[in-house]
């Protein structure tokens, strides 16, 4: 516990982490708030339409008679769920594939890397469009959409992890670990995994922001999940589709855009500050070796 507090103390010396931390905390609170929402997010015409922001409706209401604030709460929650599902599954695949093919090498390495390269060179936007057209109902669930995105994003990071493991495997300390009688499994999780974790953490967050971006792209194209279910992407798509600016309802359009930008910046700063913290050399350079 004391160690965790120490870690946070060190991290809070970086302004980027502080900003990212509070922005994410805010968005997280917003998404938790969705569980006490007075309105059903999928139903329309529950409030007077086209009201500007006020005390009663903090972000106004849209042309479909929905409260933008409460819709945004649901949108942030759903987008974050998609992002986390994508990141968790793609990290699990990436770490397993990266370590196995890096440490074992040989034929298995070649097979795994060929599969990975194949998913990498496929034009995934087109493939995602085709898949979400064919499996329309399947891809409408945002958990399934997360899995789909995970399948297209593990390969690059698996390669990065593999290359790291390839070089770690040849370093003397791995040999010393073998000489100390450690089993292969133990070498992997005790000697190699700590070196791989910074990659996992930063790519986890980067992968999350990629997933949010992909979800927005797919929703904007009218694919992916059900447009009545609020996500950042579907909110944006609806606002544009219904000519929010032409109707003068700028808050309808601004809410998802500002949220998305904040989310992207926060995730990016979080990933850079954490990766610098986890690399002891970079940490000493920045905050000074005290």
């Amino acid at each position, binding site marked *: 516990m004391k160690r965790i507090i120490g870690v946070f103390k060190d991290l809070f010396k970086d302004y980027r982490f502080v900003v990212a931390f509070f922005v994410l905390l805010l968005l997280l609170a917003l998404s938790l708030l969705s569980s006490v929402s007075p309105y059903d997010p999928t139903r329309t015409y529950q409030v007077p339409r086209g009201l500007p922001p006020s005390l009663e409706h903090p972000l106004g209401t849209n042309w479909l008679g929905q409260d933008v604030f409460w819709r945004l709460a649901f949108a942030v929650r759903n987008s974050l769920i998609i992002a986390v599902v994508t990141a968790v599954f793609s990290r699990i695949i990436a770490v397993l594939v990266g370590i196995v093919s890096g440490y074992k090498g040989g034929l298995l390495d070649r097979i795994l890397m060929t599969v990975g390269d194949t998913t990498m060179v496929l034009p995934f936007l087109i493939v995602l469009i085709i898949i979400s057209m064919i499996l329309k109902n399947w891809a409408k669930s945002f958990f399934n959409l997360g899995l789909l995105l995970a399948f297209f994003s593990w390969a690059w990071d698996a390669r990065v992890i593999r290359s790291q493991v390839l070089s770690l495997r040849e370093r003397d300390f791995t040999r*010393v*670990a*073998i*000489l100390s009688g450690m089993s292969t499994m133990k070498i992997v999780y*005790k000697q190699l995994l700590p070196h791989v974790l910074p990659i996992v953490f930063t790519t986890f967050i980067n992968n999350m922001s990629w997933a949010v971006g992909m979800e927005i792209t797919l929703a904007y194209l009218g694919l992916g999940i059900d447009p009545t279910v609020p996500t950042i992407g579907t909110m944006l798509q609806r606002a544009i589709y219904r000519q929010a600016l032409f109707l003068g309802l700028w808050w309808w359009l601004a809410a998802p855009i500002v949220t998305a930008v904040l989310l992207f910046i926060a995730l990016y700063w979080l990933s850079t500050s954490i990766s610098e913290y986890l690399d002891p050399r970079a940490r000493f350079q920045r905050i000074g070796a005290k």
Partner: protein
Amino acid sequence: MEEILKVKNLTKVFSIGLLLFRSKIIAVDNISFHLRKSEILTLAGESGCGKTTTAKMILGFEEPTSGEIVLEGRSIREWKRERKEFLKRVQAVFQNPFESFNPLLTVDDIFFETVYNYNLAKDQNEARKIIDEKLKVVGLSLEDIYGRYPSELSGGQLQRTSIARALLSNPSLLIADEPVSMVDASLRMSIVNLFAQLRDQLGVSIIYITHDLATAYYVSDRIAIMFRGDIVEMGPVEKVLEEPKHPYTRLLRSSIPEPDPDKKWHEDITVADTEYEEYLKGGCKFSGRCPEAREICRHEKPRERFLEDVMVKCHLYDK
């Protein structure tokens, strides 16, 4: 005296390149030697002569292309099934002390790992005692390294720590791969003395790999001079280094600078071949640089000849 390690016709061939451009490097070419109990054998030679590859093959990190390695009467292939037992008997110290420890783990971690993995201690207290005991051998104590990261210790401390770790399982064979080349001169002697002490007091056999003939002369019992994967001269260290028989050994000896300002460190060798050509030479591999090369040297491989107890591979000693 009993032989602890026997190496017979050991060969390692590396293939480089792809498909049509494939070529071979014979890193270790048909070498044989043995090591007795509590003896220090030096493997010396220039870089790329196969010293480290030999060490890696003995440790099992590289698979030999052909040949036999026998430890305590059992072939290394038989030992494969009991790798842990094997590694308990054979330990190694590597060249770079900063690389020998995981920078993300504390130094003591690998000590406790070694103790528990080889079942050397039942509980934490006993483990601490054993570790402390071995660290005392190298002039350190557990307090000095406990909870420290490798970056917090000096190179000399780390190298001694690395030796102490290798000693934990009471190995019968210690392979020291250039253990002093990264350590500064003042510490070099203390580490080399430590090896002599290990041999005399604990009866450890040591393969001491180096390119530094001065420390080799000081510490070892026998020496094997390697050149391009081949042992060209092997025998008691005094005989080999005081009256070198092989032209390459002479060259190595003359390349030790003498602390005399009047003596110029002259160079009378010309490098005739590229390294790669030397590896593939049909006859004596040294013939391109040898001042005494004759016609036969270029065509025929010299065979082993024994001049008393010194083995030498050179056509100079053909009868």
